[in-house]
C-alpha cells in the first residue's frame, strides 16, 4: 500500500491538529466490537478506530489512518507492537516530535 508522507506520530492531544490527514497512532486496545475498536492513546485519551480488519492480535497496536474527528481514526494500515510497550516514554516522543523537534519528523 502507499503511505502518505508525512504521517506524524500522535497522541490524543495532538491528533485533533490533523483532522482529515494521516497519522500514526500507537495505542492500547481496550475492546473490539464489530469493526470498531476502543483504544487508549499514549497520553490516556480515548479514541475509536474504524478497523480495516476486525481481528486485533496484540494489546498494543500502531494504527496508520485518517483522523476523522478529534477522537476518531479510520485505519488504513497497522503494525502489531506486542504486549509490552512503554506508553509513557512513547508519549514523551509524541510531544517532542510535535513541538521542539517537529522539523525532524514533519
Amino acid at each position, binding site marked *: 500500500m502507499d503511505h502518505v508522507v508525512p*504521517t506524524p506520530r500522535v497522541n490524543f492531544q495532538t491528533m485533533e491538529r490533523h483532522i482529515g490527514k494521516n497519522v500514526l497512532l500507537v495505542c492500547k486496545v481496550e475492546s473490539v466490537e464489530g469493526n470498531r475498536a476502543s483504544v487508549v492513546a499514549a497520553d490516556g485519551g480515548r479514541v475509536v478506530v474504524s478497523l480495516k480488519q476486525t481481528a486485533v492480535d496484540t494489546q498494543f497496536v500502531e494504527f496508520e489512518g485518517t483522523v476523522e474527528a478529534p477522537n476518531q481514526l479510520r485505519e488504513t494500515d497497522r503494525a502489531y507492537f506486542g504486549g509490552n510497550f512503554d506508553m509513557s516514554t512513547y508519549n514523551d516522543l509524541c510531544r517532542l516530535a510535535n513541538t521542539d523537534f517537529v522539523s525532524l519528523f514533519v
Partner: protein
Amino acid sequence: MYGGGGGYDGASQFGGGGFIGSQNDGDARSPAPKSIASRKEGLRAVTIKQLVDANKAEHHNDVNSFHNVTCVGKITTVRESNNIVDMSIFDGTGTYVVHFYSSDVDDAMAQRIAEWRPGVYVRVYGNVSDFDDNWRIQAYNIRTITDFNEVTYHNLQAIFQHAHIAKGYPGSGAAQAQPAAGGAPVAQQQGMSGFGGAPDDIGNDGLTNLQRQVLGVFEQPAHLAASDGLTVEQVAQQLPNLTLKQVRDVVAFLMDNANIYTVSDEHHYKSTKCD
C-alpha cells in the same frame, strides 16, 4: 531490560552505539569539499526525513550531514534476488530505499531475509550513498525488530543526537539554556549524559566504558588497516583486565550495535569505522 512503563535502563538497550558527538562531523556526500575525517564519523540515528532533507540540501553542516546511519522503519516493498535485497522502508516521516547485499547466504541469513516482508519493522544500519542519482542506504546490517520500544528509543535517539550536535555539548551554555530538550524528562529517563541527564556510565556514544574499551582495540589504526579482523581471544589478550566471557559478551553487543562486523568467517571481527 526495558520494561513496560518502567523507563529506560540506559542508552545502550537498543543498539544505538557508535554516535560520536563531534562538532566536526563533516559531510561525506555534499558537493562541498570533502575531508577524510568526514568518512570517520560515528553512527547517526536518523529519521528518514532527516535523510531526505540532507539529500536536498545544497549546504551541509554538522546537523544535516550523514554518512553512517541507522534507521528504524516498516518495510513497504521488498524484492530479493541473487543475494541482493532491495526494500523501501517507511517511518512516518518519509520513505527510503535500502539496498542489502550478502556475499554468503547461509541458512541463518536466508531465514533473516525471509523475515523481511512488507509490514515488518526493521532496524537498518548502513551508509548513505548516491546510486544512479537515487539516494539509498547501502545496508551492512538489517535486523527485524521484535521489541517495539525500539521504535520509541530510535526516534528519541535521533532527537538526542540532533540536539547534541545542534546545541552543543552537555554543560555548554546552549545546552544549559534548554535543559531536557524542551522540558521533557526523556533524556534523564534514558540515562544519557546530556541535557540534564544524571551522570552515568554510558557516554555520549551510547557505550559503557567496558564496551568502549573493547571497541578501542578494534579501532586501533593497525587493526582498522588490516583486513583479516580480530578474534575474541586476540582482543582479550590485549585487555588483561577483562575475562574472556566479558570480552565475548561485549563483542556480541558490538555486533548487534553494528560497531563491528564479521570478516572471512564468523570468528573474526572488524570495526565498521572506516579506515
